[in-house]
């Protein structure tokens, strides 16, 4: 039996999802026979961890602080084993721009994009370059903050007239935003889980919009307007290629334990990686647990394996 601290909540915009992930993880850890120490991450985090001195920390945080390497850095300093990816992998994955550059360098397809800071517009006259970008990417263009999780701050520009407002919105979330070519097609997610034989891709999940011929990017993320199908109905070769790209992305970013890679499949059956999530949702409607279920890995087993991986990594690390 181990003493497991579950880190959840925090101040990120994804606090609510994290609380749900955390609650579900806590229940699983109890069922596995471990002792649970729930911690809603706040200013007393270090104090709490010192007082509780857990054997291992399950990081069930999403978004800023929890998923970008900040909390992981603190756990490293305290020398506490923790679940999931380490500091550099989190930092790389939470930065969509860096992720895309690394993917391109490694030959993994990702939609063409341009990234700017607010400063570039304010002080370097980057706005003058917008018409060139718009021509290169062609409409519609997806505008998104570089560092947010979920779909927060993502806007869909149908024409040049939509671009400035979309940029203003995206800059509310981050000092850096990217303009990305929109890949029209199917929305896929491949979860990856480490194991004895190395990382393994779980069955593909597809997000299917409920309404026919709807073309509303934002609505795609609204409750009840999207249905998730797992395993996605795909030709074998496409599913294999999706798994291959997800594993490549996982490796390039240096993720550990588990993760989720989001992809688009265009009408010519070409696949593009959009981003990777070092700590995907673990709620009862989240995609990683859904994919694990489809691979006959129940939620308790999933949580148990993630914990074992964390302890094994800590044991293998030089003292």
């Amino acid at each position, binding site marked *: 039996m181990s003493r497991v601290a579950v880190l959840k909540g925090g101040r990120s915009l994804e606090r609510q999802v994290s609380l749900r992930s955390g609650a579900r993880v806590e229940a699983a850890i109890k069922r596995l026979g471990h002792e649970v120490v729930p911690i809603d991450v706040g200013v007393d985090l270090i104090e709490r961890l010192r007082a509780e001195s857990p054997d291992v920390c399950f990081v069930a945080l999403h978004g800023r602080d929890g998923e970008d390497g900040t909390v992981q850095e603190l756990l490293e300093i305290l020398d506490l084993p923790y679940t999931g990816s380490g500091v550099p992998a989190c930092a790389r994955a939470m930065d969509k721009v860096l992720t895309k550059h690394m993917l391109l360098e490694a030959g993994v397809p990702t939609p063409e994009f341009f990234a700017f800071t607010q400063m570039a517009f304010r002080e370097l006259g980057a706005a003058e370059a917008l018409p060139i970008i718009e021509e290169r990417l062609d409409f519609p263009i997806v505008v998104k903050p570089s560092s947010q999780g979920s779909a927060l701050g993502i806007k869909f520009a149908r024409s040049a007239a939509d671009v400035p407002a979309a940029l203003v919105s995206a*800059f509310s979330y981050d000092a850096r935003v990217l303009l990305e070519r929109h890949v029209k097609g199917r929305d896929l997610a491949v979860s990856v889980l480490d194991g004895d034989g190395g990382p393994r891709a779980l069955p593909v999940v597809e997000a299917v919009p409920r309404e026919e011929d709807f073309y509303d990017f934002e609505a795609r993320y609204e409750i009840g307007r999207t249905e998730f199908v797992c395993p996605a109905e795909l030709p074998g070769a496409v599913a294999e290629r999706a798994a291959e790209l997800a594993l490549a992305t996982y490796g390039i970013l240096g993720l550990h334990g588990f993760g989720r890679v989001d992809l688009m499949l265009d009408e010519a059956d070409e696949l593009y990686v959009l981003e990777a999530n070092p700590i995907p949702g673990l709620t009862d409607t989240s995609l990683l647990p859904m994919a694990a279920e489809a691979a006959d890995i129940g939620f308790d087993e999933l949580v148990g394996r993630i914990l074992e991986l964390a302890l094994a990594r800590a044991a293998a690390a030089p003292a």
Partner: protein
Amino acid sequence: MDAEGMRVDLLEDTLDRLERDGRRPKFIYTVPSFQNPAGVTMSLARRKRLVEVAAERELLVLEDNPYGLLRYEGEAPEPLYGLDGGVYVMYLGTFSKILSPGIRLGWVVAPPPVLEKINLGKQEADLCTSTLSQLMVQAYFELSDWREYVRSLTAIYRGRRDAMLAAMAEHFPSQAEWTHPAGGLFIWATLPDFIDTDDLLVRALRDNVAFVPGSGAYLDGRGHNSMRLNFSGSDEERIREGVRRIGEAIREQLELYGTLTGEFKAVPVEGAEADAGQTDPGAGARVVELRRREGRPRRAGGA
């Protein structure tokens, strides 16, 4: 809704349409005085017409009046209940805004057959409100000078409203418009169309200041460039500082938009006064088809 409250003409259009569709509304809900979130008050003429419409069509009206006693200027128009004589109008009052927010006690005035049903429903819902707190509130209103207490509250809130309006005139850009409520707790501000207040809120939160984005007041995606500002809970100094920070975040977005388009410049307001009551806090009434619940809502865990 406009500066005179609910557009009763649009209500009638809506009722006509519902009738054509064979649908009968259960009742008409309205906050005629210092509406939440807009802060506007329904004019006497509109009130009279609303009561007529209710009688003509034999429809119940639920008059919710939590803020009516918090009036900082002018005379209160007659409540709908008074105009109607208690035939079709049900009236709701609350002690939350005039005694203590935590008290969670209110009162209902309604035609006797309706009241009977309400009693039944309430008993079923919560087995009656605590008798002890009811007795305490009763004793308070019997023994104390509650009118004096409400006067002291209105003096405080009037000062806060004025502080907020003055700070908005100073820090909000001239392209923004807002209501000038004669009472209640809310100001409704509308920004240029290209600002999405859901996103602006995220920017403002970084400076530890918050407001309610306008989209929360609609079911159909309108209100995305509006916000509700509440002046009840913070003292005047904090209100001034909060409005200054929100104003700065707005200005930053206006400037960014300006550099992106070259057509829109942030213009500082010089000695301008908050534009009283000219604002249309929302286009006309529309029936919004509510999405029926289909089992459990599904959503990816995101992250």
